[in-house]
């Protein structure tokens, strides 16, 4: 405010932009490029979401972020009476066939936008549909830019949106990595996500340890599939949570960069600088939002956003204050965006890279987070007989991850219950809760969306060539049985025949089986 000139960075090396990147991946961090304010959104039909996408593009945005509904995320068609009724279009957009993906991106040049798709179990179908839209509209696959979450390992550990068992699912992920590495150099094939692990109850150290271990597992799987680490590692990215313990979060981000760079160089033989850099997106902690006195969540989100910025995130989503009650309203989503704009443009934190570097406490916390994550890696290496990938499989099979996460979640609840942990508005300072009793200001999705989508799907099924659909699904089954085949090309063929996502997932499940979680408390 007073105009005192400041340098881009203070303190001793290794400086930001220097190995092991503890202080940040770029020398001048936000001075050279501010973090991307990427807000996740989407609900209703593909046509509704397309309208929203075009609006974003008209206002100068270049990044589109797609939220899918639960049936789509679980590989179920909208007309699946057992699993989909009541959930179509509720938590995101419903995509059954290529026709929906064509509607979603109608009149949008896929060669000039960057698209993020948050989908995991059936990610290969969504990617195939996206590629098919590009092919149909004459866009070169090599120009496609974007990210598909495709982090299947954390699904068994935390988010639970899996379809097939872990090993065949990893084959699908490595097929996608091989395919995009060869022909889609601007595509990010996996976004390794700690966010959901944390939301499910993990501590900051567990989020860090489990997430980086999953990252190492993808690297080991891709290397085993014959890929050179420097050909794909530069396209891996991460997604972390920002919870309420301010300095712990900052230490976590700094430790993540240091561990990733060190392991990638020393254990996996990466040489390219890009392979060593832990690039990450951050979202504030949805689970920390309270239904009680919801407006005070604005303050929580602001502090969590600040931790993300001080931790050196590359992009940030700030949660809306009403998300403990329902999907966010437009006003609440706007306040969330304004909150990170205040952090970016008013506080001055973007002027200096790693402004907390050198603080005795922050450096200690960074070391402590690294030490705790290393204990987790050691445990997984032991479980896997020297392989992180095998250790992660074993940890999924024997309930290690879900057990650790459930223990932490319960410990947290007990601390809230016995008052050793204060949550403002919940177990202290509870006066003034005038929560919206009539619900008039909550977003509600009506049944119309589901009715529309059911008609849409029926029309697509009516118009397609069933013989071609069946032949393409047979090819998918055959290629699934051949571990040397890549599943992306036959699935592109199936989506081009307008096979549904559910049909393609059923074909894969007929070979791979479906994963059923052991119900462990």
């Amino acid at each position, binding site marked *: 405010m007073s105009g005192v000139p400041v340098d881009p960075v203070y303190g001793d090396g290794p400086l930001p932009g220097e190995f092991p990147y503890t202080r940040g991946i770029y020398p001048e961090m936000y001075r050279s490029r501010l973090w991307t304010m990427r807000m996740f959104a989407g609900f209703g039909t593909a046509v509704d979401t397309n309208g929203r996408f075009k609006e974003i593009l008209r206002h100068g945005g270049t990044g589109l972020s797609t939220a899918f509904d*639960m*049936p789509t*995320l*679980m590989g*179920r068609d909208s007309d699946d009476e*057992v*699993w*989909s*009724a*009541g*959930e179509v279009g*509720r*938590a995101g957009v419903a995509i059954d066939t290529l026709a929906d993906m064509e509607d979603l991106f109608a009149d949008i040049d896929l060669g000039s936008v960057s698209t993020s798709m948050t989908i995991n179990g059936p990610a290969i179908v969504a990617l195939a549909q996206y590629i098919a839209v590009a092919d149909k509209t004459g866009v070169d696959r090599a120009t496609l830019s974007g990210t598909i979450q495709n982090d299947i390992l954390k699904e068994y550990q935390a*988010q*639970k*949106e899996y379809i097939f068992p872990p090993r065949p699912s990893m084959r699908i992920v490595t097929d996608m990595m091989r395919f995009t590495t060869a022909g889609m150099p601007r595509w990010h094939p996996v976004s390794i996500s700690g966010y959901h692990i944390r*939301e*499910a*109850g993990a501590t900051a150290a567990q989020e860090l340890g489990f997430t980086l271990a999953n990252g190492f597992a993808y690297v080991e799987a891709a290397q085993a599939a014959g890929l050179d680490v420097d050909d794909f590692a530069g396209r891996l990215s991460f997604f972390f949570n920002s919870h309420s313990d301010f300095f712990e979060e900052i230490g976590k981000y700094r430790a993540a960069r240091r561990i990733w760079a060190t392991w990638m160089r020393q254990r996996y033989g990466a040489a390219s600088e890009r392979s060593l850099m832990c690039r990450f997106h951050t979202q504030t902690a949805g*689970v920390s939002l*309270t*239904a*009680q006195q919801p407006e005070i969540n604005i303050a929580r989100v602001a502090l969590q956003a600040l931790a993300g910025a001080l931790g050196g995130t590359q992009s940030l989503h700030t949660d809306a204050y009403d998300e*403990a*009650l*329902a*999907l966010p309203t437009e006003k609440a989503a706007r306040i969330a965006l304004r909150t990170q704009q205040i952090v970016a443009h008013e506080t001055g934190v973007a002027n200096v890279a790693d402004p907390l570097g050198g603080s005795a406490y922050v450096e200690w916390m960074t070391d402590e987070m690294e030490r705790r994550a290393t204990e987790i890696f050691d445990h997984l290496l032991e479980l896997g007989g020297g392989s992180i990938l095998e250790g992660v499989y074993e940890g999924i099979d024997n309930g290690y991850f879900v057990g650790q*996460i*459930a223990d932490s*979640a*319960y410990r947290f*609840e*007990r601390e*809230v*219950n*016995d008052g050793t942990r204060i*949550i403002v508005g*919940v*177990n202290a300072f509870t006066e003034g809760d005038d*929560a*919206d*009793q*009539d*619900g*008039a200001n*909550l977003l*509600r*999705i009506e049944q119309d969306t589901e009715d529309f989508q059911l008609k849409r799907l029926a029309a697509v099924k009516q118009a397609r060539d069933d013989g071609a659909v069946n032949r393409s699904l047979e090819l998918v089954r055959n290629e699934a049985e051949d571990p040397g085949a890549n599943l992306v090309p036959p699935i592109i063929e199936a989506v081009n025949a307008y096979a549904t996502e559910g049909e393609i997932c059923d074909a894969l499940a007929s070979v791979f089986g479906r994963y*059923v*979680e052991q*119900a*462990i*408390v």
Partner: protein
Amino acid sequence: MTDMADGPQAAVAGRTAPIRVVLAKLGLDGHDRGLKVVARMLRDAGMEVIYLGLRQTTDTVIAAVEQEDADVIGLSMHNAGHLALAPRIVQAVSDAGLDVPVVIGGIVPEADVSALKEMGISAVLHPGASAVAVGEAVREAVRGSLGDRPVHD
């Protein structure tokens, strides 16, 4: 932590056996953090928990209630589907000829609570509910379903 270890109260007056609770999530919703915490809270309170976990249907829940001779059903909902799912489970309980109360917990707007109760849901628990409140809601639901039998407490 004494508030969670209130074993003797786990039984409702008028009966001696501990309360048996079936816990489940219906449909595709995968948010199981809350349900797992509730399972441990109820166990600490001396109840017997039959944890079905994720991806259950009304049929699998009813089958578990029958096989396990459960006293109460606890469902967790985070997908805004509570108004659609509640009547289905209440109907399924009644179709099976059971007299078992249903308690719902999760992301449920306060404004929907009275509608859910009219549909036959015994209690609704919101995020932040204490272990005591959760245990009490379950006991109260079971007490209510015991109907005319004498209840002393």
